[in-house]
């Protein structure tokens, strides 16, 4: 044998959740020193497979080999000891603890002391060695998303992980942070490390990865080096016999005459710590147009969206808002729905404050079902919203917010964590809303996506807002303060 053993070799993995077979005899091989993209639609089993590889879930059948040695992982601690690291889509950090504490967590033995300032010094050194910059003494809750992700990577690297698993790492990153991550990954792989990248983003995967594996409905349907496949082959492997992918219609509307629906004049917003996030911002949205918002993390778009959605009252300046505004916040599980409640209960929720007397549940159950059917939420007779997949939850939230034809709709990263088909569906709904005269405001951290959809672009930079041409290069430059 002259070929080195694969860094990770999963053999014949099967996993059953209740009556559904999440993984059906999947084998997965990652060669040492390569970047391997793991592709698949939502629910294809990518995350489950990697959770098994990382010891966070147990498989019913199959075996795990790391560097040629068979392992039986009982917990993530075993996987970490074997040299694996995982950066989760929803970060596994403790917000109340510092960066250093999060990195040290679970690292040393159970007994014995650790010296906070000495540990912070070690973390600072690690930051320098890896080129991942982050303040070791900052509290994680105060960090931007990109910095939190760097903490996750540092955590894995600090334990000598040689194989890093990334679950949808760019879903929450700005384009610039994404570029930084990708160039870091290249350096890591060049230095002998191995990376598994779980992703929806087909093109990025194909330009970045050495090898690619595609899962569909719990089965491995394609495993190849990237050079040996083209995009069309991967797409057909991803989607199977399903309907062909709709290409986004590049139709833009150019409205200069429509009625102004949303307007903000000299708006200033400060956060709870009292520092200003928006300074004297003007924005205007007309009926029947999609206004795209872009900005790097913390540039003020979070506040601007909430001002336009009527969720945040500015400290100064004036806003004019219509009576009925739909709002789809980015973190749907936390801010848009109560996962444990039924579809009908979640439909009633936003208007519960205005209702009196008995709630006519049968009416709302019917309405929830009708909304679900109309928007293709599957299954439409689900009980708790939390039992729906992420894509279906998002369709449901959008359906609820669009119900009753609101004058305006504000959406924040509406395709975050969705697969191609579900994303496409959501974007199509937004276009349809625009075409019926709704004033749509959309923020997306995916620059390509927002530029392909928007009729006009507003870019937030450092608490100010400027309008730019609808063009990736112009928007990208404005996001980093060049114009």
């Amino acid at each position, binding site marked *: 044998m002259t070929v080195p053993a694969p860094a990770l070799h999963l053999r014949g993995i099967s996993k059953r959740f209740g009556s559904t077979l999440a993984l059906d005899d999947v084998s997965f091989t990652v060669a040492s020193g390569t970047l391997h993209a793991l592709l698949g639609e939502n629910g294809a089993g990518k995350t489950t497979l990697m959770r098994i590889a990382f010891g966070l879930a147990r498989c019913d059948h199959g075996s795990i080999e790391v560097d040629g040695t068979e392992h039986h992982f009982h917990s993530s601690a075993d996987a970490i000891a074997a040299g694996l690291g995982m950066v989760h889509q929803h970060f596994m950090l403790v917000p109340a603890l510092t960066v250093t504490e999060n990195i040290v967590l679970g*690292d040393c033995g159970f*007994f014995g002391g650790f010296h906070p300032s000495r540990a912070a010094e070690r973390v600072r050194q690690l930051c320098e060695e890896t080129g991942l910059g982050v303040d070791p003494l900052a509290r994680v809750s105060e960090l931007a998303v990109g910095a939190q992700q760097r903490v996750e990577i540092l955590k894995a690297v600090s334990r000598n992980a040689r194989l890093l698993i990334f679950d949808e790492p760019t879903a929450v990153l700005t384009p610039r942070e994404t570029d930084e991550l990708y160039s870091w990954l290249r350096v890591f792989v060049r230095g002998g490390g191995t990376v598994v990248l779980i992703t929806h983003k087909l093109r990025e995967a194909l330009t970045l990865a050495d090898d690619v594996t595609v899962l569909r409905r719990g089965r491995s349907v394609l495993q190849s080096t990237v050079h040996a496949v083209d995009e069309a082959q991967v797409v057909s492997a991803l989607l199977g016999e399903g309907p062909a992918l709709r290409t986004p219609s590049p139709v833009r509307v150019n409205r200069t005459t429509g009625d102004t629906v949303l307007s903000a004049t000299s708006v200033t917003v400060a956060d709870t710590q009292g520092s200003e996030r928006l300074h004297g911002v003007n924005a205007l949205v007309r009926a029947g147009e999609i206004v795209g918002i872009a900005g790097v993390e913390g540039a003020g778009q979070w506040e601007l969206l909430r001002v336009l959605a009527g969720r945040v009252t500015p400290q100064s300046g004036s806003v004019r808002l219509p009576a009925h505004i739909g709002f789809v916040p980015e973190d749907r599980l936390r801010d848009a729905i109560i996962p444990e409640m039924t579809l009908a209960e979640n439909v009633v929720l936003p208007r519960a404050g205005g209702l009196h007397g008995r709630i006519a549940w049968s009416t709302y159950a019917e309405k929830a079902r009708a909304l679900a059917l109309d928007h293709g939420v599957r299954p439409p007779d689900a009980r708790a919203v939390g039992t729906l997949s992420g894509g279906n939850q998002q369709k449901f939230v959008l359906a609820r917010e669009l119900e009753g034809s609101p004058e305006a709709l504000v959406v924040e990263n509406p395709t975050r964590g969705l697969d191609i088909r579900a994303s496409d569906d959501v974007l199509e709904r937004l276009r349809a809303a625009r075409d019926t005269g709704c004033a749509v405001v959309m923020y997306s951290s995916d620059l390509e996506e927002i530029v392909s959809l928007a009729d006009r672009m507003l870019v937030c930079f450092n608490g100010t807002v400027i309008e730019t041409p609808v063009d990736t290069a112009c928007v990208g430059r404005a996001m980093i303060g060049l114009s």
Partner: protein
Amino acid sequence: MSALGAFAESSVRMATPLAYAALGELVVERAGIINIGLEGMIIAGAFGALAGTGFAGVAGGLAGAAMSGVLVAGLFAIFVVGLRSDQIITGTAISLLGLGLTGALYQAMYVDAGVIGRTTTMGVWSLPLLRSIPILGPAFFAQPALTWALYAIAPALGWWLYRTPAGLALRAVGERPAAAAAAGISPSRVRTFAILFGGLMGGLSGATLVLAQVGGFAEGMSAGRGFIAIAVVALGRWTPLGVWLAALLFGAASALQFLAQAMGWSVPYQVWLSTPYVLTLLALAGARRRSVAPAALGARATE
């Protein structure tokens, strides 16, 4: 001794059992568990102290108290960690069980058997120089060994919580168990150890009542201290030194009634007893600015 000196001395004395129970509860809560069963662990500790002294004097009493507290805590841990039952309901049941069971055992083993439930008490240790400080000297430096031990336990807990990997693991589990699990820590194991430690401290709280104060056992002698200790933890803002100071404050409030008696104030003693609760409410209202309670406190175990 002056009235003020007596007040200071009784403040520290009343604070001691509260401090033991609350420091234990602090560790439990930092792991994300709210232990309403603490009352049951204190009374079990008190009975264990009585039974233990019968075998081996004060040392036996301490061992018996600690063992009884840990035993009851183990039962709580089986339900809350092992079977993932609701913390509040389980804790309430454990408190009622502890009160009832110790009462029945006391009746059967002592009252009905004609044995007198008296114990020897711990002597007072005093430091010659420090004890002559006016008012505070006798209060802090002429106390039973169990009170002295607190001067080491509270700072040691603070060091452990913020300077050791184990303390870090405990805090992480109380804030975000899923993140702790992903870092290779077993939240169930951390919670079990925390609960057992809480039981140990609850047991010693009971031992203080029997061995350092009353010199005997009485049914229901824990008198709600388990519940007060939970308030003490909140008032102390979930830090060991804060909790110890809060226990002193509650102790002082309980001691106010003696001072009021000595001074001939004609305010009902219940008014003095209620002052610490008013303080707790104000402290909790003031904590609004920054949440200090562990984020996962009271959440049912899922992992």
